């Protein structure tokens, strides 16, 4: 399945009452901006299931949203024949999300600081800044011949960690 059918099917499975989700979830979507809300909803829902507070779940979803938009616009250059893969993993201490595109990528390390006076009235250029502010770690990897992978990592708050976590044992 592709396109809207995929998005609708994912939403149906996701919204099923009592549906159970494992610690690792991976979806692949056609490279279209229109799916950003689906990705956002999934991220927020998985983060809440991982017992993130509502505001922290929104922060994570906003970071993933920006990474997905970057993958579609700058990675895959709006080529809808390409795809974006989003993979979620929760372990004892962190929530990790990989966003992978099939494009050439760009230089993630040399982006202007949107808070500098000269950039304040710019109408774009805040996506990576949002990512870096809403999660604990952001890393970018270029995969030769395949595309670019962004990894977003957010620490689970101690209260949300499992019974076997270091904090819980203290």
């Amino acid at each position: 399945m592709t396109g809207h059918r995929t998005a609708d099917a994912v939403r149906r499975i996701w919204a099923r009452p009592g549906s159970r989700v494992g610690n690792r979830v991976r979806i692949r979507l056609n490279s279209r901006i229109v799916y950003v809300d689906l990705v956002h909803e999934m991220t927020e829902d998985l983060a809440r299931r991982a017992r993130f507070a509502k505001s922290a779940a929104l922060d994570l979803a906003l970071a993933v949203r920006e990474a997905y938009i970057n993958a579609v616009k700058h990675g895959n250059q709006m080529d809808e024949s390409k795809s974006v893969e989003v993979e979620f993993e929760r372990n004892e201490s962190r929530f990790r999300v990989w966003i992978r595109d099939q494009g050439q990528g760009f230089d993630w390390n040399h982006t202007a600081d949107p808070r500098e006076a000269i950039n304040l009235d710019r109408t774009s250029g805040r996506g990576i800044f949002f990512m870096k502010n809403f999660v604990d770690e952001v890393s970018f990897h270029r995969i030769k011949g395949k595309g670019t992978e962004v990894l977003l990592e957010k620490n689970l708050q101690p209260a949300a960690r499992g019974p076997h976590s270091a904090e819980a044992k203290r």
Partner: protein
Amino acid sequence: MKASVRHQGKVTIVDLSGKITIGDGDIKLREAVNALLDEGRKAVILNLKGVSYMDSAGIGELVACYKRAAEKGAKLKLLNPGGKVQDLLILTRLQEIFEIFRDETDALNSF
């Protein structure tokens, strides 16, 4: 996102609700503000009370609206940003370029 327009004398208030994000809210915001500027409105308040969050595209559109208003000799001010929207305006330092009000009467009297 929804945008509803009301007028208080020469000032126009746009009550926004929902989220200002790529592909929907940003476009509706642009259309609403452009329509007012095209009508010749010179004093516009964006009431953000009902806005839950914005993404970088939404923030970018807010700045674009501000710049378009200035180009047309109009003023665009913000009212009642709350929660995440307020956080984002502080984070991006946009509170330094926008006039932001908590009280509608104060906002109306500022023009």
